[in-house]
Protein backbone atom coordinates (compact mmCIF):
# COMPACT_ATOMS: atom_id res chain seq x y z
CA UNK A 1 0.00 0.00 0.00
CA UNK A 2 2.77 2.34 0.95
CA UNK A 3 4.74 1.40 -2.14
CA UNK A 4 1.80 2.30 -4.36
CA UNK A 5 1.64 5.70 -2.80
CA UNK A 6 5.29 6.27 -3.47
CA UNK A 7 4.86 5.55 -7.17
CA UNK A 8 1.92 7.87 -7.33
CA UNK A 9 4.05 10.58 -5.81
CA UNK A 10 6.94 10.02 -8.17
CA UNK A 11 4.51 10.13 -11.07
CA UNK A 12 3.06 13.39 -9.83
CA UNK A 13 6.50 14.91 -9.40
CA UNK A 14 7.43 13.83 -12.94
CA UNK A 15 4.32 15.42 -14.38
CA UNK A 16 5.11 18.70 -12.69
CA UNK A 17 8.72 18.58 -13.79
CA UNK A 18 7.59 18.15 -17.39
CA UNK A 19 5.13 21.00 -17.03
CA UNK A 20 7.48 23.43 -15.37
CA UNK A 21 10.88 22.54 -16.86
CA UNK A 22 10.49 24.65 -20.02
CA UNK A 23 9.45 27.65 -17.96
CA UNK A 24 12.41 27.36 -15.62
CA UNK A 25 14.72 26.76 -18.57
CA UNK A 26 13.47 30.02 -20.07
CA UNK A 27 13.82 31.87 -16.76
CA UNK A 28 17.34 30.57 -16.25
CA UNK A 29 18.55 31.91 -19.58
CA UNK A 30 16.98 35.31 -19.03
CA UNK A 31 19.99 35.97 -16.80
CA UNK A 32 22.53 34.83 -19.39
CA UNK A 33 25.05 37.46 -20.41
CA UNK A 34 26.01 35.31 -23.42
CA UNK A 35 23.01 36.47 -25.40
CA UNK A 36 21.86 33.06 -26.60
CA UNK A 37 19.94 30.13 -25.16
CA UNK A 38 22.84 27.75 -25.67
CA UNK A 39 25.74 28.49 -23.38
CA UNK A 40 25.36 30.14 -20.03
CA UNK A 41 28.22 32.59 -19.71
CA UNK A 42 27.48 34.73 -16.74
CA UNK A 43 24.83 36.43 -14.67
CA UNK A 44 23.36 39.69 -15.93
CA UNK A 45 20.25 41.80 -15.44
CA UNK A 46 20.71 43.57 -18.79
CA UNK A 47 17.65 42.01 -20.36
CA UNK A 48 15.44 43.15 -17.51
CA UNK A 49 16.79 46.66 -17.96
CA UNK A 50 16.08 46.35 -21.66
CA UNK A 51 12.47 45.40 -20.97
CA UNK A 52 11.91 48.39 -18.71
CA UNK A 53 13.55 50.75 -21.18
CA UNK A 54 11.55 49.51 -24.16
CA UNK A 55 8.53 51.81 -23.91
CA UNK A 56 6.88 50.21 -26.90
CA UNK A 57 7.02 46.80 -25.25
CA UNK A 58 5.61 48.20 -22.00
CA UNK A 59 2.74 49.84 -23.88
CA UNK A 60 2.04 46.49 -25.49
CA UNK A 61 2.02 44.75 -22.09
CA UNK A 62 -0.41 47.37 -20.79
CA UNK A 63 -2.61 46.91 -23.86
CA UNK A 64 -2.64 43.19 -23.25
CA UNK A 65 -3.66 43.57 -19.60
CA UNK A 66 -6.33 46.18 -20.33
CA UNK A 67 -7.85 44.01 -23.04
CA UNK A 68 -7.75 40.93 -20.80
CA UNK A 69 -9.36 42.64 -17.79
CA UNK A 70 -12.01 44.56 -19.69
CA UNK A 71 -12.95 41.81 -22.11
CA UNK A 72 -13.28 39.16 -19.43
CA UNK A 73 -15.29 41.48 -17.15
CA UNK A 74 -17.68 42.37 -19.96
CA UNK A 75 -17.85 38.79 -21.18
CA UNK A 76 -18.64 37.49 -17.67
CA UNK A 77 -21.38 40.07 -17.26
CA UNK A 78 -22.99 39.05 -20.53
CA UNK A 79 -22.44 35.37 -19.75
CA UNK A 80 -24.30 35.66 -16.42
CA UNK A 81 -27.46 36.73 -18.21
CA UNK A 82 -26.82 34.27 -21.00
CA UNK A 83 -26.53 31.40 -18.54
CA UNK A 84 -29.65 32.55 -16.68
CA UNK A 85 -31.57 32.69 -19.95
CA UNK A 86 -30.45 29.24 -21.02
CA UNK A 87 -31.28 27.89 -17.56
CA UNK A 88 -34.79 29.30 -17.68
CA UNK A 89 -35.69 27.81 -21.03
CA UNK A 90 -38.24 25.09 -20.40
CA UNK A 91 -38.05 23.22 -23.69
CA UNK A 92 -35.35 20.61 -23.49
CA UNK A 93 -34.69 20.72 -27.18
CA UNK A 94 -34.19 24.47 -27.37
CA UNK A 95 -31.92 24.31 -24.33
CA UNK A 96 -29.74 21.59 -25.82
CA UNK A 97 -29.55 23.41 -29.13
CA UNK A 98 -28.39 26.59 -27.42
CA UNK A 99 -25.86 24.70 -25.33
CA UNK A 100 -24.48 22.94 -28.40
CA UNK A 101 -24.18 26.24 -30.24
CA UNK A 102 -22.30 27.58 -27.25
CA UNK A 103 -19.95 24.59 -27.29
CA UNK A 104 -19.35 24.83 -31.02
CA UNK A 105 -17.93 28.30 -30.47
CA UNK A 106 -15.51 26.94 -27.88
CA UNK A 107 -14.16 24.13 -30.03
CA UNK A 108 -14.12 25.95 -33.36
CA UNK A 109 -10.59 26.85 -34.44
CA UNK A 110 -9.32 30.28 -33.42
CA UNK A 111 -7.97 30.94 -36.88
CA UNK A 112 -11.44 30.70 -38.37
CA UNK A 113 -12.94 32.92 -35.68
CA UNK A 114 -10.15 35.44 -36.24
CA UNK A 115 -10.55 35.49 -40.00
CA UNK A 116 -14.33 35.89 -39.69
CA UNK A 117 -13.89 38.81 -37.32
CA UNK A 118 -11.46 40.45 -39.71
CA UNK A 119 -14.00 40.19 -42.50
CA UNK A 120 -16.84 41.37 -40.28
CA UNK A 121 -14.95 44.39 -38.98
CA UNK A 122 -13.81 45.50 -42.42
CA UNK A 123 -17.35 45.17 -43.79
CA UNK A 124 -18.76 47.05 -40.81
CA UNK A 125 -16.11 49.72 -41.26
CA UNK A 126 -14.71 49.34 -37.75
CA UNK A 127 -11.08 50.42 -37.70
CA UNK A 128 -8.75 47.72 -36.51
CA UNK A 129 -7.23 48.53 -33.15
CA UNK A 130 -8.40 48.65 -29.56
CA UNK A 131 -12.13 48.34 -30.31
CA UNK A 132 -11.81 45.43 -32.70
CA UNK A 133 -9.52 43.50 -30.38
CA UNK A 134 -11.77 44.16 -27.37
CA UNK A 135 -14.93 43.12 -29.21
CA UNK A 136 -13.45 39.89 -30.51
CA UNK A 137 -12.01 38.98 -27.12
CA UNK A 138 -15.38 39.61 -25.45
CA UNK A 139 -16.98 37.43 -28.10
CA UNK A 140 -14.77 34.40 -27.71
CA UNK A 141 -14.79 34.67 -23.90
CA UNK A 142 -18.57 34.58 -23.51
CA UNK A 143 -19.08 30.88 -24.32
CA UNK A 144 -16.34 29.93 -21.86
CA UNK A 145 -17.85 31.97 -19.05
CA UNK A 146 -21.32 30.58 -19.82
CA UNK A 147 -19.95 27.07 -19.52
CA UNK A 148 -18.42 27.92 -16.13
CA UNK A 149 -21.60 29.47 -14.73
CA UNK A 150 -24.25 27.04 -15.98
CA UNK A 151 -23.36 24.04 -13.75
CA UNK A 152 -23.78 26.20 -10.66
CA UNK A 153 -27.23 27.22 -11.82
CA UNK A 154 -28.15 23.62 -12.47
CA UNK A 155 -26.91 22.57 -9.04
CA UNK A 156 -28.96 25.23 -7.34
CA UNK A 157 -32.07 23.72 -5.83
CA UNK A 158 -35.19 25.22 -7.49
CA UNK A 159 -36.90 25.17 -4.09
CA UNK A 160 -34.58 27.98 -3.00
CA UNK A 161 -36.00 30.47 -5.45
CA UNK A 162 -39.54 29.23 -4.75
CA UNK A 163 -39.01 29.70 -1.05
CA UNK A 164 -37.61 33.19 -1.58
CA UNK A 165 -40.64 34.07 -3.68
CA UNK A 166 -43.00 32.68 -1.03
CA UNK A 167 -41.32 34.81 1.57
CA UNK A 168 -42.11 37.87 -0.46
CA UNK A 169 -38.89 38.51 -2.35
CA UNK A 170 -39.23 40.47 -5.56
CA UNK A 171 -37.74 39.18 -8.83
CA UNK A 172 -34.79 41.48 -8.28
CA UNK A 173 -34.24 40.27 -4.73
CA UNK A 174 -34.28 36.67 -5.89
CA UNK A 175 -31.61 37.46 -8.44
CA UNK A 176 -29.32 39.57 -6.27
CA UNK A 177 -29.80 37.89 -2.90
CA UNK A 178 -30.28 34.24 -3.83
CA UNK A 179 -29.12 33.31 -7.30
CA UNK A 180 -26.03 35.48 -7.72
CA UNK A 181 -24.45 34.56 -4.35
CA UNK A 182 -24.95 30.88 -5.10
CA UNK A 183 -23.40 31.00 -8.55
CA UNK A 184 -20.64 33.37 -7.42
CA UNK A 185 -17.86 30.74 -7.62
CA UNK A 186 -18.90 30.02 -11.19
CA UNK A 187 -18.79 33.69 -12.04
CA UNK A 188 -15.30 34.03 -10.66
CA UNK A 189 -13.97 30.94 -12.37
CA UNK A 190 -15.60 32.11 -15.60
CA UNK A 191 -13.87 35.44 -15.24
CA UNK A 192 -10.47 33.88 -14.62
CA UNK A 193 -10.83 31.42 -17.48
CA UNK A 194 -11.74 34.28 -19.80
CA UNK A 195 -8.78 36.23 -18.46
CA UNK A 196 -6.29 33.49 -19.32
CA UNK A 197 -7.87 32.91 -22.73
CA UNK A 198 -7.60 36.57 -23.53
CA UNK A 199 -4.02 36.90 -22.27
CA UNK A 200 -2.57 34.19 -24.48
CA UNK A 201 -4.79 34.34 -27.51
CA UNK A 202 -2.73 34.72 -30.64
CA UNK A 203 -4.75 33.47 -33.58
CA UNK A 204 -7.80 35.70 -33.20
CA UNK A 205 -5.84 38.74 -32.10
CA UNK A 206 -3.42 38.47 -34.99
CA UNK A 207 -6.21 39.14 -37.47
CA UNK A 208 -7.83 42.04 -35.68
CA UNK A 209 -4.85 44.10 -34.51
CA UNK A 210 -3.76 47.11 -36.49
CA UNK A 211 -2.91 50.80 -36.57
CA UNK A 212 -0.04 50.48 -34.15
CA UNK A 213 -2.13 48.56 -31.65
CA UNK A 214 -0.68 45.21 -30.71
CA UNK A 215 -0.80 42.66 -27.92
CA UNK A 216 1.98 40.63 -26.40
CA UNK A 217 1.28 37.34 -28.15
CA UNK A 218 1.30 38.97 -31.59
CA UNK A 219 4.43 40.96 -30.80
CA UNK A 220 6.38 37.99 -29.49
CA UNK A 221 5.38 35.95 -32.51
CA UNK A 222 6.65 38.46 -35.04
CA UNK A 223 9.86 38.89 -33.06
CA UNK A 224 10.36 35.13 -32.84
CA UNK A 225 10.99 34.96 -36.56
CA UNK A 226 14.44 36.44 -35.96
CA UNK A 227 15.10 34.15 -33.02
CA UNK A 228 13.65 35.03 -29.64
CA UNK A 229 15.73 37.68 -27.92
CA UNK A 230 16.49 37.14 -24.27
CA UNK A 231 14.54 40.26 -23.34
CA UNK A 232 11.46 38.22 -24.22
CA UNK A 233 12.70 35.63 -21.72
CA UNK A 234 13.02 38.37 -19.13
CA UNK A 235 9.53 39.66 -19.85
CA UNK A 236 8.07 36.15 -19.72
CA UNK A 237 9.76 35.60 -16.37
CA UNK A 238 8.22 38.78 -15.00
CA UNK A 239 4.77 37.83 -16.27
CA UNK A 240 5.11 34.31 -14.85
CA UNK A 241 6.04 35.67 -11.42
CA UNK A 242 3.14 38.12 -11.62
CA UNK A 243 0.72 35.27 -12.40
CA UNK A 244 2.04 33.25 -9.48
CA UNK A 245 1.47 36.22 -7.20
CA UNK A 246 -2.09 36.51 -8.47
CA UNK A 247 -2.79 32.82 -7.93
CA UNK A 248 -1.31 32.86 -4.43
CA UNK A 249 -3.30 35.97 -3.59
CA UNK A 250 -6.47 34.43 -4.92
CA UNK A 251 -5.82 31.30 -2.87
CA UNK A 252 -5.38 33.21 0.39
CA UNK A 253 -8.44 35.35 -0.25
CA UNK A 254 -10.52 32.25 -0.79
CA UNK A 255 -9.18 30.47 2.26
CA UNK A 256 -9.99 33.38 4.49
CA UNK A 257 -13.51 33.56 3.20
CA UNK A 258 -14.12 29.85 3.12
CA UNK A 259 -13.61 29.40 6.85
CA UNK A 260 -16.68 31.03 8.43
CA UNK A 261 -19.32 29.86 5.97
CA UNK A 262 -17.75 26.88 4.31
CA UNK A 263 -21.10 25.69 3.01
CA UNK A 264 -21.00 27.36 -0.39
CA UNK A 265 -17.32 27.00 -1.20
CA UNK A 266 -16.78 24.43 -3.90
CA UNK A 267 -13.10 23.81 -4.45
CA UNK A 268 -13.44 22.20 -7.85
CA UNK A 269 -15.34 25.13 -9.26
CA UNK A 270 -13.06 27.61 -7.56
CA UNK A 271 -10.11 26.23 -9.42
CA UNK A 272 -11.92 26.60 -12.68
CA UNK A 273 -12.54 22.91 -13.25
CA UNK A 274 -15.72 22.32 -15.23
CA UNK A 275 -17.81 19.50 -13.90
Amino acid sequence: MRNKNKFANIYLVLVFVVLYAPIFYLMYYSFNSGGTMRDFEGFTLDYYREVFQDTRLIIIVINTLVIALLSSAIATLIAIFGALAIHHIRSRRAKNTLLSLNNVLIVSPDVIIGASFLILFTIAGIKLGFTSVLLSHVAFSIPIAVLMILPHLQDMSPTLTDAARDLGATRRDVLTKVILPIIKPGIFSGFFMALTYSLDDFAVTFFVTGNGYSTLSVEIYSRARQGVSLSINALSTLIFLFTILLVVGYYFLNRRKARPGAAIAEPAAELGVPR
Partner: protein
Amino acid sequence: MKQLVNAFLAILIVAFGLMFLGSRLNSAQGYTGGNTLTIYNWGDYIDPDLLDQFQEETGITVIYQTFDSNEAMLTKVEQGGTTFDVVVPSDYAIAKMREENLLLPLDHSKIPNLANIDEQFMDLSFDPGNMYSVPYFWGTVGIIFNPEMTEGMDFSSWDSLWDSRLNNNIFLVDGAREVMGMALNSLHYSVNDTNEDHLQEALAKLNRLSPNVKAIVGDEIKMLLANEEAAVGIVWSGDASEIMDENDKLDYIVPEEGSNIWFDNMVIPKTAANVEGAHKFIDFMLRPEVAAQNTEYVGYSTPNTPALALLPEDISGDTRFYPPAEITDRLEVYDNLGKRMLAHYNELFLRFKMNKK
Protein backbone atom coordinates in the same frame (compact mmCIF):
# COMPACT_ATOMS: atom_id res chain seq x y z
CA MET B 1 -23.68 40.28 -4.30
CA LYS B 2 -21.72 43.06 -2.70
CA GLN B 3 -18.53 41.12 -3.22
CA LEU B 4 -19.36 40.64 -6.88
CA VAL B 5 -20.02 44.32 -7.43
CA ASN B 6 -16.85 45.23 -5.57
CA ALA B 7 -14.76 42.81 -7.59
CA PHE B 8 -16.27 44.12 -10.79
CA LEU B 9 -15.56 47.71 -9.81
CA ALA B 10 -12.01 46.84 -8.79
CA ILE B 11 -11.39 45.24 -12.17
CA LEU B 12 -12.76 48.26 -13.98
CA ILE B 13 -10.67 50.65 -11.90
CA VAL B 14 -7.49 48.66 -12.55
CA ALA B 15 -8.28 48.41 -16.26
CA PHE B 16 -8.98 52.11 -16.66
CA GLY B 17 -5.95 52.99 -14.56
CA LEU B 18 -3.79 50.90 -16.87
CA MET B 19 -5.48 52.44 -19.89
CA PHE B 20 -4.70 55.91 -18.58
CA LEU B 21 -1.09 54.91 -17.97
CA GLY B 22 -0.91 53.43 -21.47
CA SER B 23 -2.25 56.54 -23.15
CA ARG B 24 0.13 58.71 -21.10
CA LEU B 25 3.04 56.59 -22.32
CA ASN B 26 1.67 56.72 -25.84
CA SER B 27 1.44 60.47 -25.93
CA ALA B 28 4.84 60.79 -24.23
CA GLN B 29 6.15 58.81 -27.19
CA GLY B 30 4.12 60.93 -29.57
CA TYR B 31 2.16 57.99 -30.97
CA THR B 32 -1.17 59.78 -30.82
CA GLY B 33 -0.58 62.99 -32.77
CA GLY B 34 -1.87 63.52 -36.31
CA ASN B 35 1.50 63.63 -38.01
CA THR B 36 2.37 59.95 -38.05
CA LEU B 37 3.80 57.44 -40.44
CA THR B 38 2.96 53.76 -40.13
CA ILE B 39 5.62 51.38 -41.32
CA TYR B 40 4.99 47.67 -41.77
CA ASN B 41 8.22 45.71 -41.96
CA TRP B 42 9.68 42.31 -41.18
CA GLY B 43 10.55 41.74 -37.54
CA ASP B 44 13.91 43.29 -36.54
CA TYR B 45 14.61 44.52 -40.07
CA ILE B 46 15.67 48.10 -39.38
CA ASP B 47 18.07 49.86 -37.04
CA PRO B 48 15.76 51.48 -34.45
CA ASP B 49 18.13 54.46 -34.11
CA LEU B 50 17.32 55.38 -37.70
CA LEU B 51 13.64 55.67 -36.84
CA ASP B 52 14.55 58.11 -34.06
CA GLN B 53 16.76 60.05 -36.43
CA PHE B 54 13.96 60.26 -38.99
CA GLN B 55 11.53 61.49 -36.32
CA GLU B 56 13.94 64.17 -35.18
CA GLU B 57 14.61 65.41 -38.68
CA THR B 58 11.07 65.52 -39.97
CA GLY B 59 8.91 65.76 -36.86
CA ILE B 60 6.88 62.84 -38.17
CA THR B 61 6.19 60.20 -35.54
CA VAL B 62 6.88 56.69 -36.75
CA ILE B 63 4.59 53.84 -35.76
CA TYR B 64 6.50 50.68 -36.48
CA GLN B 65 4.73 47.37 -36.92
CA THR B 66 6.09 44.00 -37.89
CA PHE B 67 4.97 40.94 -39.82
CA ASP B 68 6.55 37.54 -40.22
CA SER B 69 5.56 36.43 -43.72
CA ASN B 70 4.55 37.99 -47.00
CA GLU B 71 1.27 36.13 -46.83
CA ALA B 72 0.36 37.56 -43.43
CA MET B 73 1.28 41.04 -44.65
CA LEU B 74 -0.82 40.60 -47.80
CA THR B 75 -3.89 39.62 -45.77
CA LYS B 76 -3.58 42.69 -43.59
CA VAL B 77 -3.02 45.09 -46.49
CA GLU B 78 -5.74 43.56 -48.64
CA GLN B 79 -8.38 43.83 -45.93
CA GLY B 80 -7.53 47.49 -45.53
CA GLY B 81 -8.53 47.74 -41.88
CA THR B 82 -5.29 49.56 -41.15
CA THR B 83 -3.48 52.30 -42.97
CA PHE B 84 0.11 51.35 -43.61
CA ASP B 85 2.22 54.04 -45.27
CA VAL B 86 5.33 52.06 -46.11
CA VAL B 87 5.46 48.26 -46.45
CA VAL B 88 8.46 46.06 -47.27
CA PRO B 89 7.33 42.95 -49.20
CA SER B 90 9.48 40.52 -51.19
CA ASP B 91 9.66 40.42 -54.98
CA TYR B 92 6.90 37.92 -55.74
CA ALA B 93 4.59 39.58 -53.22
CA ILE B 94 5.14 42.90 -54.99
CA ALA B 95 4.14 41.33 -58.30
CA LYS B 96 1.01 40.01 -56.63
CA MET B 97 0.17 43.34 -55.01
CA ARG B 98 0.65 45.08 -58.33
CA GLU B 99 -1.71 42.67 -60.04
CA GLU B 100 -4.30 43.19 -57.35
CA ASN B 101 -4.00 46.95 -57.54
CA LEU B 102 -2.90 47.39 -53.96
CA LEU B 103 -0.04 49.80 -54.60
CA LEU B 104 0.37 53.51 -55.28
CA PRO B 105 2.79 54.47 -58.05
CA LEU B 106 5.88 56.19 -56.64
CA ASP B 107 6.65 59.79 -57.46
CA HIS B 108 10.29 59.47 -58.48
CA SER B 109 10.84 63.25 -58.32
CA LYS B 110 10.34 63.01 -54.55
CA ILE B 111 12.97 60.30 -54.21
CA PRO B 112 16.18 61.89 -55.53
CA ASN B 113 18.29 59.34 -53.66
CA LEU B 114 16.95 56.65 -55.97
CA ALA B 115 20.04 57.43 -58.06
CA ASN B 116 22.11 55.69 -55.36
CA ILE B 117 20.67 52.30 -56.20
CA ASP B 118 22.87 50.09 -58.35
CA GLU B 119 21.57 49.82 -61.94
CA GLN B 120 21.52 46.04 -61.84
CA PHE B 121 18.93 46.02 -59.06
CA MET B 122 16.53 48.32 -60.88
CA ASP B 123 13.88 47.64 -63.50
CA LEU B 124 13.41 43.96 -62.66
CA SER B 125 10.68 41.65 -63.88
CA PHE B 126 8.50 41.95 -60.78
CA ASP B 127 8.31 45.74 -61.12
CA PRO B 128 9.39 47.13 -64.53
CA GLY B 129 10.65 50.68 -64.32
CA ASN B 130 10.38 50.60 -60.51
CA MET B 131 6.94 52.11 -60.82
CA TYR B 132 5.89 50.92 -57.38
CA SER B 133 8.91 49.76 -55.45
CA VAL B 134 12.41 50.69 -54.35
CA PRO B 135 15.02 48.08 -53.34
CA TYR B 136 15.63 47.80 -49.59
CA PHE B 137 17.79 44.69 -49.27
CA TRP B 138 18.66 41.83 -51.58
CA GLY B 139 20.20 38.42 -51.31
CA THR B 140 20.67 35.03 -52.84
CA VAL B 141 19.83 31.37 -52.29
CA GLY B 142 22.87 29.28 -51.60
CA ILE B 143 24.54 26.55 -49.59
CA ILE B 144 25.54 27.00 -45.98
CA PHE B 145 27.97 24.38 -44.77
CA ASN B 146 30.07 23.38 -41.81
CA PRO B 147 33.69 22.86 -42.96
CA GLU B 148 34.47 20.78 -39.85
CA MET B 149 31.72 18.31 -40.61
CA THR B 150 32.29 18.12 -44.36
CA GLU B 151 36.05 17.56 -44.40
CA GLY B 152 37.17 19.90 -47.11
CA MET B 153 34.36 19.21 -49.53
CA ASP B 154 33.91 21.86 -52.18
CA PHE B 155 30.45 23.38 -52.54
CA SER B 156 31.04 25.64 -55.50
CA SER B 157 28.67 23.45 -57.52
CA TRP B 158 25.12 22.37 -56.66
CA ASP B 159 26.11 18.84 -57.68
CA SER B 160 28.25 18.52 -54.58
CA LEU B 161 25.01 18.06 -52.61
CA TRP B 162 24.50 14.67 -54.25
CA ASP B 163 27.77 13.40 -52.76
CA SER B 164 27.13 10.21 -50.80
CA ARG B 165 29.31 11.48 -47.96
CA LEU B 166 26.48 13.85 -47.07
CA ASN B 167 24.10 10.99 -46.27
CA ASN B 168 21.28 12.29 -44.04
CA ASN B 169 23.13 15.54 -43.49
CA ILE B 170 21.27 18.24 -45.46
CA PHE B 171 18.46 20.56 -44.40
CA LEU B 172 16.31 22.05 -47.14
CA VAL B 173 14.21 25.14 -46.67
CA ASP B 174 10.52 24.38 -47.17
CA GLY B 175 9.92 26.36 -50.36
CA ALA B 176 8.83 24.87 -53.67
CA ARG B 177 10.51 27.56 -55.77
CA GLU B 178 13.76 27.36 -53.83
CA VAL B 179 14.14 23.58 -53.93
CA MET B 180 12.87 23.11 -57.49
CA GLY B 181 15.00 26.08 -58.57
CA MET B 182 18.06 24.51 -57.00
CA ALA B 183 17.47 21.26 -58.89
CA LEU B 184 16.84 23.12 -62.16
CA ASN B 185 20.02 25.15 -61.64
CA SER B 186 22.05 22.03 -61.01
CA LEU B 187 20.91 20.83 -64.45
CA HIS B 188 21.91 24.22 -65.91
CA TYR B 189 18.30 25.24 -66.52
CA SER B 190 16.69 28.50 -65.46
CA VAL B 191 14.94 28.78 -62.07
CA ASN B 192 11.95 29.99 -64.07
CA ASP B 193 11.92 27.01 -66.44
CA THR B 194 8.46 25.88 -67.48
CA ASN B 195 9.44 23.11 -69.87
CA GLU B 196 7.72 19.97 -68.60
CA ASP B 197 10.61 17.67 -69.58
CA HIS B 198 13.07 19.84 -67.69
CA LEU B 199 10.82 19.91 -64.64
CA GLN B 200 10.47 16.13 -64.66
CA GLU B 201 14.22 15.80 -64.99
CA ALA B 202 14.64 18.11 -62.01
CA LEU B 203 12.18 16.06 -59.96
CA ALA B 204 14.03 12.86 -60.82
CA LYS B 205 17.27 14.47 -59.75
CA LEU B 206 15.71 15.70 -56.52
CA ASN B 207 14.46 12.20 -55.76
CA ARG B 208 18.03 10.98 -55.98
CA LEU B 209 18.92 13.61 -53.37
CA SER B 210 16.48 12.09 -50.85
CA PRO B 211 18.97 9.91 -48.95
CA ASN B 212 21.05 12.98 -48.18
CA VAL B 213 18.14 15.10 -46.99
CA LYS B 214 17.69 15.03 -43.24
CA ALA B 215 14.65 17.25 -43.16
CA ILE B 216 12.70 19.93 -45.01
CA VAL B 217 12.04 22.69 -42.51
CA GLY B 218 10.79 26.25 -42.21
CA ASP B 219 12.20 29.15 -40.23
CA GLU B 220 13.63 26.81 -37.59
CA ILE B 221 16.31 25.87 -40.12
CA LYS B 222 18.40 28.72 -38.68
CA MET B 223 18.40 27.29 -35.19
CA LEU B 224 18.99 23.74 -36.41
CA LEU B 225 21.99 24.69 -38.52
CA ALA B 226 23.49 26.94 -35.86
CA ASN B 227 23.22 24.02 -33.43
CA GLU B 228 25.08 21.79 -35.92
CA GLU B 229 22.22 19.35 -36.35
CA ALA B 230 23.38 18.86 -39.93
CA ALA B 231 26.43 19.82 -41.95
CA VAL B 232 24.73 21.48 -44.91
CA GLY B 233 21.64 23.58 -45.59
CA ILE B 234 20.01 25.33 -48.53
CA VAL B 235 19.07 28.78 -47.25
CA TRP B 236 18.57 32.42 -48.20
CA SER B 237 21.70 34.53 -47.76
CA GLY B 238 19.92 36.64 -45.12
CA ASP B 239 19.32 33.59 -42.99
CA ALA B 240 22.88 32.46 -43.67
CA SER B 241 24.32 35.68 -42.27
CA GLU B 242 22.18 35.25 -39.14
CA ILE B 243 23.27 31.64 -38.73
CA MET B 244 26.89 32.63 -39.15
CA ASP B 245 26.45 35.31 -36.50
CA GLU B 246 25.31 32.57 -34.14
CA ASN B 247 27.91 30.04 -35.13
CA ASP B 248 30.98 31.36 -36.90
CA LYS B 249 32.24 27.94 -37.94
CA LEU B 250 29.77 27.89 -40.81
CA ASP B 251 30.37 29.22 -44.29
CA TYR B 252 28.10 30.23 -47.16
CA ILE B 253 28.51 29.95 -50.91
CA VAL B 254 26.46 30.65 -54.03
CA PRO B 255 27.14 27.80 -56.47
CA GLU B 256 28.48 28.80 -59.82
CA GLU B 257 25.68 27.25 -61.92
CA GLY B 258 23.60 30.18 -60.77
CA SER B 259 20.83 30.66 -58.28
CA ASN B 260 17.93 32.85 -57.30
CA ILE B 261 18.34 36.48 -56.31
CA TRP B 262 15.63 37.91 -54.05
CA PHE B 263 14.59 41.39 -53.10
CA ASP B 264 12.74 43.07 -50.28
CA ASN B 265 11.49 46.37 -51.63
CA MET B 266 9.76 49.37 -50.09
CA VAL B 267 6.30 50.12 -51.46
CA ILE B 268 3.42 52.46 -50.63
CA PRO B 269 0.07 50.67 -50.39
CA LYS B 270 -3.14 52.21 -51.79
CA THR B 271 -4.50 52.66 -48.28
CA ALA B 272 -1.62 54.90 -47.18
CA ALA B 273 -2.68 57.95 -45.17
CA ASN B 274 0.58 59.90 -45.29
CA VAL B 275 1.85 59.56 -48.86
CA GLU B 276 4.08 62.64 -48.52
CA GLY B 277 5.73 61.22 -45.39
CA ALA B 278 6.09 57.81 -47.03
CA HIS B 279 8.10 59.32 -49.88
CA LYS B 280 10.22 61.22 -47.38
CA PHE B 281 10.89 58.02 -45.47
CA ILE B 282 11.84 56.06 -48.58
CA ASP B 283 14.20 58.82 -49.67
CA PHE B 284 15.65 58.93 -46.16
CA MET B 285 16.36 55.19 -46.20
CA LEU B 286 18.18 55.53 -49.54
CA ARG B 287 20.67 58.07 -48.17
CA PRO B 288 24.15 56.51 -48.27
CA GLU B 289 24.93 57.01 -44.55
CA VAL B 290 21.52 55.76 -43.48
CA ALA B 291 21.61 52.74 -45.78
CA ALA B 292 25.12 51.90 -44.58
CA GLN B 293 24.14 52.10 -40.91
CA ASN B 294 21.08 49.98 -41.56
CA THR B 295 23.11 47.40 -43.49
CA GLU B 296 25.53 47.06 -40.61
CA TYR B 297 22.63 46.52 -38.20
CA VAL B 298 20.59 44.08 -40.30
CA GLY B 299 23.45 42.26 -42.01
CA TYR B 300 21.78 41.71 -45.39
CA SER B 301 23.17 42.98 -48.71
CA THR B 302 22.46 46.58 -49.63
CA PRO B 303 21.68 47.63 -53.22
CA ASN B 304 22.97 51.13 -52.45
CA THR B 305 26.31 51.76 -54.22
CA PRO B 306 27.57 54.82 -52.26
CA ALA B 307 26.49 53.09 -49.03
CA LEU B 308 28.57 50.08 -49.95
CA ALA B 309 31.58 52.35 -50.27
CA LEU B 310 30.96 53.61 -46.72
CA LEU B 311 30.91 50.14 -45.25
CA PRO B 312 34.01 48.53 -43.76
CA GLU B 313 35.96 46.32 -46.12
CA ASP B 314 35.08 43.09 -44.30
CA ILE B 315 31.40 43.65 -45.15
CA SER B 316 31.57 45.15 -48.61
CA GLY B 317 34.40 42.87 -49.69
CA ASP B 318 32.62 39.72 -48.56
CA THR B 319 32.09 37.85 -51.81
CA ARG B 320 29.66 35.51 -50.14
CA PHE B 321 27.15 38.35 -49.81
CA TYR B 322 28.36 40.65 -52.57
CA PRO B 323 29.33 38.10 -55.19
CA PRO B 324 31.47 39.17 -58.16
CA ALA B 325 29.85 40.01 -61.46
CA GLU B 326 30.41 36.58 -63.01
CA ILE B 327 28.16 35.11 -60.35
CA THR B 328 25.56 37.88 -60.16
CA ASP B 329 25.16 37.64 -63.92
CA ARG B 330 23.87 34.13 -63.44
CA LEU B 331 21.47 35.00 -60.67
CA GLU B 332 17.82 35.18 -61.63
CA VAL B 333 14.77 36.74 -60.06
CA TYR B 334 11.74 34.48 -59.72
CA ASP B 335 9.32 35.40 -62.45
CA ASN B 336 5.65 35.31 -61.74
CA LEU B 337 4.90 32.03 -63.49
CA GLY B 338 1.17 32.32 -63.09
CA LYS B 339 -1.15 30.41 -60.83
CA ARG B 340 -1.18 27.17 -62.82
CA MET B 341 2.56 26.87 -63.19
CA LEU B 342 3.06 27.70 -59.52
CA ALA B 343 0.59 25.01 -58.57
CA HIS B 344 2.55 22.62 -60.76
CA TYR B 345 5.81 23.56 -59.02
CA ASN B 346 4.13 22.96 -55.66
CA GLU B 347 2.79 19.64 -56.89
CA LEU B 348 6.24 18.46 -58.00
CA PHE B 349 7.78 19.63 -54.74
CA LEU B 350 5.08 17.77 -52.83
CA ARG B 351 5.80 14.61 -54.81
CA PHE B 352 9.46 14.92 -53.86
CA LYS B 353 8.53 15.38 -50.21
CA MET B 354 6.29 12.31 -50.28
CA ASN B 355 8.97 10.21 -51.94
CA LYS B 356 11.43 11.07 -49.23
CA LYS B 357 11.81 8.21 -46.83
